[in-house]
């Protein structure tokens, strides 16, 4: 009891000491102090915890610390934020909950009504988490609003409309908090939207800028669309990007062109779909772009979280942007200029002979979707998807959950109709024992595979690496597991009883390292036993 009281006092002190999540705190990340302040843990997208209590030697003792059962169940993709003793999560379809990190007991809950009746075309009614800045929690809603909540009690401070849900615009992405502004993207890549990324004043919700991912008439890149097809060119921005404060540059992935599988109606490269864009966060202006899949006809959104690393590359210190793209290739770019430096497949792919000197894929003819169906690897869901990779500065390896699955791609006629599906085909994926998954460790500079851990089926779980030399991941069969970060050797696992389609995080409670993941309709947290 005395110990428990002591813990409460420590947390209470921590809360009163900070209480405000300043931009400086976000810059620092404070991961070593046990917080997890942004979607990926730090602005560079590492999803890495510097806490090192849990190691290869003791991870076999890891046990459940607490479980939080979501009230309404549903499909849970939330990536928690942990700050000052509180974990903030989203629950589908439109709830934010604040939990005590010591017990999992709920502190408050805010629910936006009628979210189960929203228009979500081509994706489930999910949400991937919140952003925190100052004493405010920010969440996007399925009916396409950005809402600001008081971090202490969940009371709504303001809301602002980001897009029209009537036309298929929606928000599933966790916002990103910068200095005084909140960055938020939109979903709607299967509804023929014209995608964009927005910045809002964190204090009052006033829109500061909008970057359209599809250039309008007169803008560079508009000529990569035939006729008026840019108006329905999609390019959604549904996964949280990363930020380099030194370069003052925001990097954000852009999704597929619309319609997804019938490219005949949109001749050209279709900029800036299936690309990463580098933006000035002051005004949303474009610094550079890199398109992974020009004229994409396989729905290979580039919405993977990029990872920003500063390393020596071919003898010179360079600022790099690395990503394992949904199209099956691993890319290394110079993030100052957008220059392509290196790319190589990290999974089975049958659509490109390789990448040319500029990183453009060298296409193998006959790999387009057809009326009869055309078998191509990777499947529509990609060699990886929205779930996060991880970079460990300790092992200097890039970890990614990989889906080894092919699919028959179909093409069909489609005409745009406002607020209706605008896809033009689909897939029939190879299933069961014809597909499998893996967690792979790649050399961060070359993409060369260092090891893999095979999974029973293609996964939907992100990856967390830790300074204790571990990598955590999950499976669709409910396994949450830890591998040796250097060798991939499995060291610990637990059956959670529900499919894992979420990102793990790491945090600390009174100095004790925890890891957490959403599995099934619950949040699980794990730690070593208190008395060892």
């Amino acid at each position, binding site marked *: 009891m005395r110990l428990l009281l002591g813990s409460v006092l420590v947390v209470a002190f921590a809360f009163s000491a900070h209480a405000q999540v300043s931009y400086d705190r976000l810059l620092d990340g404070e991961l070593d102090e046990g917080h997890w302040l942004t979607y990926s843990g730090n602005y560079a997208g590492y999803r890495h915890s510097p806490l090192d209590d849990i190691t290869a030697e003791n991870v076999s003792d890891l046990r459940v610390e607490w479980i939080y059962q979501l009230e309404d169940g549903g*499909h849970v993709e939330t990536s928690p934020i942990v700050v000052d003793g509180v974990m903030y999560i989203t629950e589908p379809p439109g709830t934010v909950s604040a939990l005590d990190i010591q017990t999992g007991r709920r502190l408050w809950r805010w629910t936006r009504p009628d979210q189960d009746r929203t228009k979500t075309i081509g994706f489930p009614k999910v949400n991937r988490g919140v952003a925190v800045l100052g004493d405010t929690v920010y969440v996007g809603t399925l009916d396409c609003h950005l809402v600001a909540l008081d971090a202490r009690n969940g009371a709504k401070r303001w809301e602002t409309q980001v897009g029209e849900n009537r036309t298929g615009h929606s928000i599933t992405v966790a916002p990103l908090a910068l200095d005084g502004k909140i960055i938020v993207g939109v979903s709607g890549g299967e509804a023929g939207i014209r995608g964009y990324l927005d910045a809002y004043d964190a204090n009052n919700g006033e829109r500061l800028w909008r970057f359209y991912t599809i250039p309008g008439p007169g803008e560079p890149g508009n000529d990569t669309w035939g006729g008026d097809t840019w108006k329905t060119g999609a390019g959604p921005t549904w996964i949280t990007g990363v930020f380099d404060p030194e370069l003052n540059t925001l990097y954000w992935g852009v999704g597929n062109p619309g319609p997804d599988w019938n490219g005949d109606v949109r001749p050209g490269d279709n900029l800036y779909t299936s690309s990463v864009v580098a933006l000035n966060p002051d005004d949303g202006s474009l610094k550079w772009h890199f398109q992974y899949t020009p004229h994409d006809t396989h729905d290979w959104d580039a919405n993977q979280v990029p990872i920003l690393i500063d390393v020596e590359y071919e003898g010179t210190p360079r600022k790099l942007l690395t990503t394992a793209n949904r199209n099956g290739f691993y890319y290394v770019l110079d993030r100052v200029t957008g220059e392509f430096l290196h790319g190589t497949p990290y999974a089975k792919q049958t659509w490109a002979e390789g990448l040319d000197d500029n990183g453009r894929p060298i296409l193998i003819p006959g790999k387009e979707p057809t009326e009869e169906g055309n078998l191509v690897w990777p499947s529509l869901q990609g060699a990886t998807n929205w779930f996060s990779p991880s970079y460990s500065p300790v092992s200097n390896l890039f970890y990614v959950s990989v889906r080894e699955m092919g699919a028959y791609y179909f093409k069909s006629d489609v005409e745009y109709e406002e607020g209706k599906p605008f896809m033009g085909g689909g897939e029939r994926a190879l299933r069961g024992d014809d597909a499998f998954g893996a967690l792979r460790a790649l050399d961060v500079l070359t993409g060369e595979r260092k090891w893999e851990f095979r999974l029973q089926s293609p996964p939907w779980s992100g990856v967390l690496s830790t300074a204790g030399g571990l990598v955590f991941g999950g499976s669709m*069969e409910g396994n949450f597991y830890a591998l040796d970060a250097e060798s991939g050797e*499995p060291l610990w696992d637990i*059956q959670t009883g529900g499919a894992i389609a979420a990102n793990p995080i790491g945090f600390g409670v009174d100095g004790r390292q925890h890891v957490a993941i959403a599995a099934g309709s619950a949040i699980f947290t794990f730690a070593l036993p208190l008395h060892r």
Partner: protein
Amino acid sequence: MLAIAMLFCVAGLAGAEEDSADNSQGRRLYDAHCAICHSIGGTGGRGPRLDVPKLRRASNSRALGSLIRFGIQGSEMPGAWSLSDDDVDAISGYVLELGQREPEVTPGDADRGKAIYAAQDCAACHMINGFGSSLGPDLSDIGLRRSAAYLRTELVRPGAAVPQGFMMIYAVPEKGDPVEGMRENEDSFSVQIRDVENRFHSFRKADLKTFRKQRGKTLMPSYGQKLDGTEMDDLIAYLASLQGEE
């Protein structure tokens, strides 16, 4: 975009009450998306046959459209989230038309087939309406789920299409005897097996010296040599007559 796909998705329900007039479009889409499991012409395969007057799970085109769009939770039937409303209408129209075709004529005599089923002791492995063994697939409504052609293939070459849940596993633990049986479940770290005597085993994969998936292997013997042509027809006629309990 499309995050997790099949089971969870999509927009509005298909609303058409009338069958689509364009059944060539329906057939084309059906052949591309559905025939892999339900076979060309809806004669059934891995999925149930659809060339029947009344579909068990969908009594009209609205219900069928909804089923095509959302799939069936807990089954292998995925939702077709990427099809437009028109495509779903076209497919459901074509499927409903399949049920209006002349029913498949099986040449055998179902009563004689029932006697062959008993004489061959099929109940040692299979169950019909609660009677028999649970080692092999339950056959109570096999006539609804499989075509005569599929049943013939299974009886002659049973390894050609082993049903889901009956993949044979050969496992040798570090300590203990080898186990051969059917895979009940499997994840990245463990496997659950039902052996030939219908006993459950659960193994950590790391504790197995040998773990082999025996694709194409089955406990079901071939009856291609055991039965003559007439007997085979009779047995198939009997199985095709099994429509489940009302």
